């Protein structure tokens, strides 16, 4: 780490680190002073109360005022705590947490990029944050203008004539896209029965298809990790409603045959759905609409740097090609002269699939995404994709040889390794992932995509510095070396977290999801 002064805090004279002192991870992780914390139910004291209430007036009788059926008696096991205890409880739990603001988070396919605080500040402007969804249009012109402008921008960036703004997240965007595809086929007299999905797809793709009554046909990728036109041609017939393609795919590989594949599907009357989960790799460089996609969801919480959770919900607008515009869900925002209007009445759009989300979409996320687009501008958006690809390829180049690369095809914004080189020592992808925590990094995505056994899927995103990437690479290389010299150490990782190697199998087989008074857990 850059440290021009070379200054380091030193220990007091005569003091020595204890035998249990932990080393510092290559991304800076130490144990620090992390507090053990019982459940809220296991704390407090009977009769303790965290708020000041006026005394009960003399002679007060609740049963005289409240019907007996609505009167509640004692609540067994209700925590009785002071305000300070409650604050400490949740503060301590929050300190066990990991987020992009804490450290590196290379979770492949999730695009865990930094969410700029300027976007947060703008989303908190009272005019946006306090706007009630039932305000009349005349009093919501600013919010409507922003939705309209973001819709125009997203459509332009992805190459679609229009975009649906209301879906709440990526998976709902997919669902919405498939609903429009189904409505399109129904309007032409036959909903069709099948959806084609490559074996590299996200699990949400078959789920969205199944939710719309389609059966899925899995297409095998070629030895280069790409989907090949002849595979699609063989599976394509008049009963296929659509193909769902992620580009670049979950191996980080660009589907270079996409135009030809789209032609094959279109020739038989099918549509091409784009899973926009990996759109970050193409931003400002290539447009899915130009590649032959008919629909694509955007995932504002990935590509456009809105929070993945905690700070707010996701948001999954959907770009659509001309033939699908009549089926878009309501509401949509239209511009009429200098004013903006919400179209909510199906009479105006008789072929609409209806409403898929209460109110108008996650507008707080729209503000953040719009702020990012305006801050970066066209050149900046292009730099996002270029740097995301550069960062992933830097990590790839540095880790080749230390980890096995199952597909050697060039990759874009993410790279997938596996644990083949560690296997002989009995070290698995899970061990590598857990050990990485001790160094101070969130692990990459593991065991996905399914076409790679023991996959380690790394997506650094564009917002990480070279220094952070170097630390991550050093940690991954150290783990590869350790897997040869001390594989047992990896089996016990992580050591620095408050909870060590938790038994995920038991948690999945015998989950305990709810605390009850007097419960006994083995």
């Amino acid at each position, binding site marked *: 780490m850059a440290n021009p002064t070379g200054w380091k805090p030193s220990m007091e004279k005569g003091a020595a680190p204890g035998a249990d002192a932990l080393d510092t991870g290559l991304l800076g992780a130490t144990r620090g002073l992390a507090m053990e914390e019982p459940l809220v139910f296991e704390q407090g004291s009977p009769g303790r109360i965290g708020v000041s209430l006026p005394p009960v007036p003399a002679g007060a009788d609740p049963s005289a005022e409240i019907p007996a059926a609505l009167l509640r008696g004692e609540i067994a096991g209700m925590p009785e705590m002071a305000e300070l205890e409650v604050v400490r409880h949740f503060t301590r739990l929050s300190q066990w947490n990991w987020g992009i603001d804490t450290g590196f988070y290379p979770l492949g396919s999730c695009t865990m990029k930094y969410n700029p605080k300027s976007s947060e500040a703008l989303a908190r402007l009272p005019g946006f944050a306090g706007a009630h969804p039932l305000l009349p249009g005349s009093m919501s012109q600013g919010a409507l203008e922003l939705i309209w402008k973001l819709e125009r921008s997203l459509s332009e960036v992805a190459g679609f004539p229009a975009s649906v703004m209301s879906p709440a997240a990526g998976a709902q965007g997919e669902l919405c896209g498939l609903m429009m595809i189904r409505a399109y086929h129904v309007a032409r007299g036959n909903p069709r029965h099948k959806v084609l999905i490559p074996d590299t797809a996200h699990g949400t793709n078959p789920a969205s298809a199944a939710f719309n009554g389609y059966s899925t046909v899995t297409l095998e990728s070629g030895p280069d990790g790409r989907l090949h036109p002849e595979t699609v041609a063989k599976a394509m017939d008049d009963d296929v409603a659509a193909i769902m393609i992620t580009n670049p795919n979950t191996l980080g590989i660009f589907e270079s045959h996409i135009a030809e594949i789209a032609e094959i599907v279109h020739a038989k009357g099918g549509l091409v759905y784009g899973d926009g989960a990996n759109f970050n790799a193409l931003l400002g460089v290539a447009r899915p609409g130009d590649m032959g996609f008919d629909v694509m969801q955007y995932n504002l919480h990935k590509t456009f740097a809105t929070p993945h959770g905690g700070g707010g919900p996701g948001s999954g607008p959907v770009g659509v090609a001309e033939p699908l515009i009549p089926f878009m869900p309501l509401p949509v925002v239209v511009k009429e002269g200098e004013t903006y209007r919400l179209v909510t009445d199906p009479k105006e759009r008789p072929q609409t699939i209806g409403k898929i989300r209460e109110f108008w979409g996650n507008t707080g996320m729209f503000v953040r995404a719009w702020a990012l687009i305006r801050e970066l501008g066209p050149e900046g958006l292009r730099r996002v994709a270029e740097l995301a690809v550069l960062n992933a390829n830097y990590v790839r180049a540095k880790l080749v040889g230390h980890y096995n690369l199952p597909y050697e095809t060039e990759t874009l914004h993410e790279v997938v390794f596996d644990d083949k080189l560690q296997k002989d020592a009995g070290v698995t992808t899970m061990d590598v992932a857990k050990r990485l925590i001790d160094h101070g990094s969130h692990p990459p995505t593991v065991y996905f995509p399914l076409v790679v*056994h023991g996959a380690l899927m790394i997506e650094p995103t564009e917002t990480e510095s070279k220094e952070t990437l170097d630390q991550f690479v050093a940690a991954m290389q150290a783990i590869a070396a350790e897997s040869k010299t001390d594989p047992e150490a990896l089996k016990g990782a992580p050591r620095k977290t408050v909870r060590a190697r938790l038994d995920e199998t038991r948690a999945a087989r015998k989950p305990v999801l709810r605390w009850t008074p007097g419960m006994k857990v083995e």
Partner: protein
Amino acid sequence: MNFPDDLKYTRDHEWARVQGNRVTVGITDFAQDALGDVVYVELPEVGDVVKKGETFGVVESTKAVSDLFAPVSGKVVEVNAPLVDAPETVNEDPYEEGWMIVIESTDAKELAELLDGAAYRKFVEEEQE
């Protein structure tokens, strides 16, 4: 790895024990090992009709969720219900206690298309290359 010779196999890593037109189905030793600890099994109901090559259920491990593919077409006549509460049986005893369903096969020709133990072993070795 153990691939008993008296069983038939699919390229999707299911095994089939053929007794007349009754075909017992489970997942192979290779499949359970590749999946890791199985934590959840979703099976069809008795009476459901399955088609060769199409999914009849789902097996979930701590690593992945995978579809189960029917080795033959026919009607489901038995289901190993205890697996739902004891999914670890699939790991512990994939060929006996870990069986999943029994299909009453409707097309004897399909049986000939399944792999024998040696051919499946070869297939697995090639896949691991």
